């Protein structure tokens, strides 16, 4: 569903991405690992249209979105879960959920969201940022599900969260996958990535240096941990 080829981008004077090729199939969870500064977040920001690529193509369901502005990409079915969760302080929990427009028939209703995330229902009138870190992450994911996005771009959803919350997020990702949506998951937490992803890209200095299936990824976990410096 997502095909990225030859993507290059600059970050100021420095080239951040050197011809990146990435694809994600329907119902597939693909992780993207790499050290800090490898270009992971720049790649995702290019995909959603917030960072300008200098060459290469981004296609979703065969549709060329390389020059489309961010809101058109979102409406074409991309959903971005930002690395700092991006919860609006000036909106209540429910307003955070009501904000994004519906882009497909798979959009979750508020009732579905509240059933899956009872904690959000309990805090629906509270300001978005009064939630705990884990709750904000749930809210950020639920907000993207409200659009019915077919491809989720998740930037470090497990970062800084307690193990029990990380496990819950893993469950949610598997549920999303079961609906046939694709997920591109930026993840430094190799152990977590191995439990949810089908395939793994290793990004180094703006290049995809390796593509591993999950078995190989598990086998080389020790190596990768050392490589990532975690």
């Amino acid at each position, binding site marked *: 569903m997502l095909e990225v080829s030859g993507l290059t981008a600059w970050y100021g004077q420095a080239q951040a991405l050197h011809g990146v090729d990435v694809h994600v199939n329907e119902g597939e969870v693909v992780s993207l690992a790499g050290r800090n500064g490898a270009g992971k977040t720049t790649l995702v920001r290019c995909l959603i249209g917030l960072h300008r690529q200098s060459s290469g193509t981004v296609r979703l369901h065969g549709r060329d979105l390389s020059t489309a502005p*961010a*809101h058109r990409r*979102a409406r074409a079915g991309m959903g*971005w879960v930002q690395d700092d969760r*991006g919860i609006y302080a*000036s*909106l209540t929990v429910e307003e955070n959920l009501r904000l*994004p*427009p519906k882009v497909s028939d798979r959009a979750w209703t508020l009732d579905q969201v509240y059933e899956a995330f009872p904690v959000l229902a309990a805090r629906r009138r509270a300001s978005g940022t009064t939630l705990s870190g884990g709750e904000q992450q749930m809210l950020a994911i639920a907000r*993207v599900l409200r659009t019915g996005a077919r491809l989720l771009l998740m930037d470090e959803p497990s970062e800084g969260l307690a193990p029990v919350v990380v496990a819950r997020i893993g469950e949610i990702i598997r549920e999303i996958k079961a609906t046939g949506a694709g997920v591109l998951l930026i993840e430094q937490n190799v152990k977590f990535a191995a439990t949810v992803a089908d395939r793994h890209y290793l990004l180094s200095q703006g290049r995809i240096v390796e593509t591993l299936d999950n078995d190989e990824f598990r086998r080389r976990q020790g190596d990768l941990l050392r490589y990532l410096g975690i």
Partner: protein
Amino acid sequence: MTAILQYAVQGLAAGSFYALAALGLAVIFGVLGVVNFAHGAFYMLGAVTAAVLLDTLGLTLWWSLLAVPVLMFAFGVVVERLLVQWLLRLDPLYNLLLTFGLTLVLVELVKQRYGVSGLPYRLPAGLQGRVDLAGVVLPRYQLFVLLFSVLICALVWLVMTRSRIGMIVRAATEKPDLARALGINVGRWVTPVFGFGVALAGLAGALAAPFRAITADMGSNFAIILFAVVVIGGLGSIVGAVVAGFLVGLVEAFGQAYAPTFAQILIFVLMALVILVRPAGLFGRQEATA
């Protein structure tokens, strides 16, 4: 006691003009990221338009309160499409140059056409005179201005907190990139929001027309105080704009009553104190995303 109440109403009425105009400035800054230095000129144009409507078409203030915002909205839309839209991707310095330059042009055009002496403005009969409220005698028009402005501020607040448009404006103010990435076409709201902000400044001007000398320069002093209001309230904060507007009006009125020489200085002392204690303003966010 009576005197204090009179000064309070006078201050709140004057504060109404600041509150309405600062509200316009806040929504424009929020959605466009543009600090509109031409806001004082738009306020002046509102007053001049009201005076001209009365003079040429015989439209009283009642009609002007409707017609001026509509005309100023249209003017704001033209200014945004013609000039301001080019600022959005540029260094903020250009926004100062353009909007300040626009102020000079508008002021000179009005001077050319209407001269430098004030235009006359007569209140409709229903708003003249004084009312006696349990022994406190107040100018009827001041009370009207106060109630009318509170009503407008409340309406804007309702729209901002209860409507989908308000939700989008808040989201676009807080994190514009994220709003776009969630599928909201923020650009579509830029022109109407700018027009709306200009309409509010124009409305403040029309309300002030019977109060103030209507001259081409009336916006310049107003703009100086207005920026103090915005700094005190917090740039981009809707509630801050309104609260600080009324607050500054009160400080000004009591200053003029009890320490006329220091009236203006008091406002800036207040501003300095606010900056010392809360650099982002009373209702501002510390890390405003521009």
